[in-house]
């Protein structure tokens, strides 16, 4: 009677691995196509990096003469035919050399590495706080229908306010009024920090506004996912059974409700990494925060192909990888439905 169950579970794990494998292959193929896309899209963009931006007042230029242009193009390898450029880039990338940025005259890796920690700091803290707040608000609403519908209304209103508006509103409503809240940048410029703690605190103080803006933008959709998954869990019988067994309230909350609700929320967490990247770039520009967002905006403005390639490759890989993880979580989640 017991025997037939073992091969049953074996069968399930085999089937799950097959699905996992197919998800992984999708991930690889998408990566390859994105890589190609990343190479060609910047080059298709009209306008060339060496012609200068003219419109800002007060910045006149001395024109680049023709052969100076040629010399620069040769220096960056942009004079060769596209096919050749592609081969060099692939060879370079394999050796983790992502080329020289035209705008910053430094290697792309260096530019990215100097800015990446700031963007990652903003994004990660935003994602975590939004997840935390979304879950907390969803938990608050459980069992109190009036409060729950009230929070729901606010959240759906907040979800509608466009991201850039939140940034600007925060900037002008808070920053202008609250003097000690810094308006821009990631650190008090050129301030000799005595201790690490003071340094960290300065970073925290500067990142307060951008993170709040991003959290206000990301929190609603975490809240919606958390709320639906919590409500389905609460209706499940094993929660009722847990109460009937007289388990401690704490055990029921964490090991029964939260643990089961966590997986769909985690899946949503990784899925929203993609949207968060877009939001972070926007907010970085509003608060002059030195992350990859600003780099990307300037790179696109000045058609710095090589830098654009580097940044997009990084961002698309992160997005792809996180959607892959969210697929894996979803697969793992289905364990209770594999009967």
């Amino acid at each position, binding site marked *: *009677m*017991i025997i037939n*169950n073992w091969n*049953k*579970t074996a069968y*399930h794990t085999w089937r799950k691995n097959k699905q996992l494998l197919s998800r992984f292959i999708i991930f690889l193929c998408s990566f390859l196509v994105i890589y190609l896309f990343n190479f060609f899209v910047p080059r298709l963009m009209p306008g060339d990096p060496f012609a200068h931006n003219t419109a800002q007042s007060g910045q006149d230029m001395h024109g680049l003469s023709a052969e100076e242009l040629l010399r620069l193009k040769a220096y960056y390898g942009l004079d060769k035919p596209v096919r050749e450029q592609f081969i060099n880039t692939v060879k370079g990338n394999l050796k983790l050399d992502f080329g020289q940025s035209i705008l910053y005259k430094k290697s792309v890796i260096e530019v990215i590495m100097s800015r990446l920690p700031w963007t990652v700091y903003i994004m990660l803290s935003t994602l975590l706080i939004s997840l935390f707040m979304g879950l907390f608000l969803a938990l608050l609403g459980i069992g109190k229908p009036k409060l729950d519908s009230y929070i729901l209304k606010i959240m759906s209103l907040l979800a509608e306010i466009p991201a850039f508006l939140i940034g600007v509103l925060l900037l002008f409503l808070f920053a202008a009024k609250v003097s000690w809240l810094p308006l821009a940048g990631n650190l008090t410029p050129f301030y000799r920090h005595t201790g690490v703690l003071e340094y960290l605190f300065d970073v925290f103080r500067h990142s307060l506004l951008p993170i709040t803006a991003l959290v206000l933008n990301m929190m609603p959709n975490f809240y919606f996912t958390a709320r639906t998954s919590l409500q389905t869990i609460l209706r*499940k*019988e*094993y929660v*009722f*059974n*847990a*109460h*009937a*067994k*007289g*388990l*401690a*309230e704490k*055990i029921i909350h964490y*090991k*029964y409700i939260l*643990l*089961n609700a966590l997986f769909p929320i985690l899946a949503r967490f990784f899925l929203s990494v993609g949207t968060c990247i877009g939001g972070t770039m926007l907010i970085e520009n509003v608060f002059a925060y030195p992350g990859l967002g600003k780099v990307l905006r300037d790179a696109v403005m000045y058609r710095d192909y090589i830098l654009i390639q580097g940044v997009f490759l990084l961002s698309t890989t992160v997005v792809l990888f996180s959607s892959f993880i969210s697929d894996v979580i979803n697969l793992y989640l289905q*364990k*209770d*439905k*594999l*009967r």
Partner: protein
Amino acid sequence: METNNLTVTYNNGFTLHPLSTTIAEGEIVAVVGESGSGKTTLAKALLNLLGSSAQVSGTVKINGHNIFQLPAKELAKRRSLEFAICLQNSYELLNPLLTVREQICEVLRKAYRENELGERLAWLINQVDLDSAVLTKYPHQLSGGMLQKINIICAVALQPGLVILDEPTSSLDRSSREEVLAFIRLLNRQAKMSFLIVTHDLSIAKAVSERIYILYGGKLVEVGLTDEVLAKPRHPYTMGLINSSMEIHPFRDIWGIRQVEETAEQQGCPFYPRCTQSLPLCATTMPELLPYKQEERLVACNRGGVVTILQGRNISKSYGKEQIINNLNLEIYAAEVVSLVGKSGIGKTTLSQILAGYLFYDTGEILFDGKPADFRKLHRMKGGLQMVFQDPHSAINPHLSVQEAVQEPLEVIFKKQDPTLIQKALGDVGLPRTITFLRKKVKHLSGGQKQRLAIARALVMEPRLLIADEPTSMLDASSKANMLRLLKSLQNEHGFSMLMVTHDLSSAVKISNRIYLLENKDELREITDTKEIAPFFC
């Protein structure tokens, strides 16, 4: 445990009517009822698990504490320690993300220290013959049966004083069911644990419980010792339930209690629409749960339980010097089929005709519905007594048309012909209702048709008791089977009682609830257990 008029009303209208009972320590009680009778609600209500969806009133005291007044924390602490419940099995009773070991230990930790867990756990799982490899598995990897056993283990892990099991054996195969029942008996004996087992399966109740509660439509209709109730059900519903349970009557053709489409909500006895012995009074007054005669039994029926339609006391009859039947006693309850079997020529027909009022008896007494039988009135009233004789040819005047034959009693008694009644009667017995057939002369009918006509004629009078003397002896095998089926379906449908005289024990067993054996002229006894009947078959 002690409940005092516990009532539960759901906002969708279903109510568990006030109920007061006690369960002593070490006692096993079974709660039996159809699905929707409120047995699960009762189980949950007893442990204050109904939450906001229902209004619960009355008190439930367990070990002296009224669990409705206990603060939540205190109540939670006592759960699994003093009382526990094992809910109806479903795939989602266990947390999908925790291993089996973890979920059992969760409960054990309430009373045992970490180091004692392993040993207690081992004992528990081999009580229900589960392999220890199960402990590391996740719920979704186990079969329904195994989950059921684990749920039961969780409930009994800390040996609480009272354990409520809701359908503990529903998804178990035969051998695991035995194991579980054995485990329950063991706990009951060893640890003096009392059990409340909610089930729809009478054989479980029979196998393990001492007392039984019968629940119908949210009302406790009968309470009593299990064996006695199963043997002699006193409430019409209980009788109907027992009669239709295959586990108890393995050989009999099983007929459920008649179905009636949902009537509007009414205050009276919940069983009123389907009750065969109901009175208009039943529709309005809610019966109280009262003791039944001297027996250790409680019945909630406005008529005090199942009514004995006919009672014959020490009846004797002799032709001249020859004693035919001597000092016989017999009872027929409402809405049941009783067979009178015996060798041919032993006096069965005589007894049946005496009971039907067509033959005088020397001594004894016959009561109909508790009152001395006034046969003259009974033959001429609706809800009276009618008889179908052995030989259809002589029972009906061959020259009459079918219509005249059937409507004769109506015409004579009520002086009017009611074609719809005739049509319905003919339809009931499966005879054609066309005009040509109605005009047909009786003599042109076959033996089977005549017998059916006789029955139609009897039923037109809607009798409360129909006595049929060897109704199938003249028929061939297939029409005999049809006739038996017809009689049983009519009896089940209209709810009248029937005394069937037959020498053929197999047909008796097939359709009758009880069987009287006339061994000789002064010995008439009831055959109850199947062992006696079996030799006649295999």
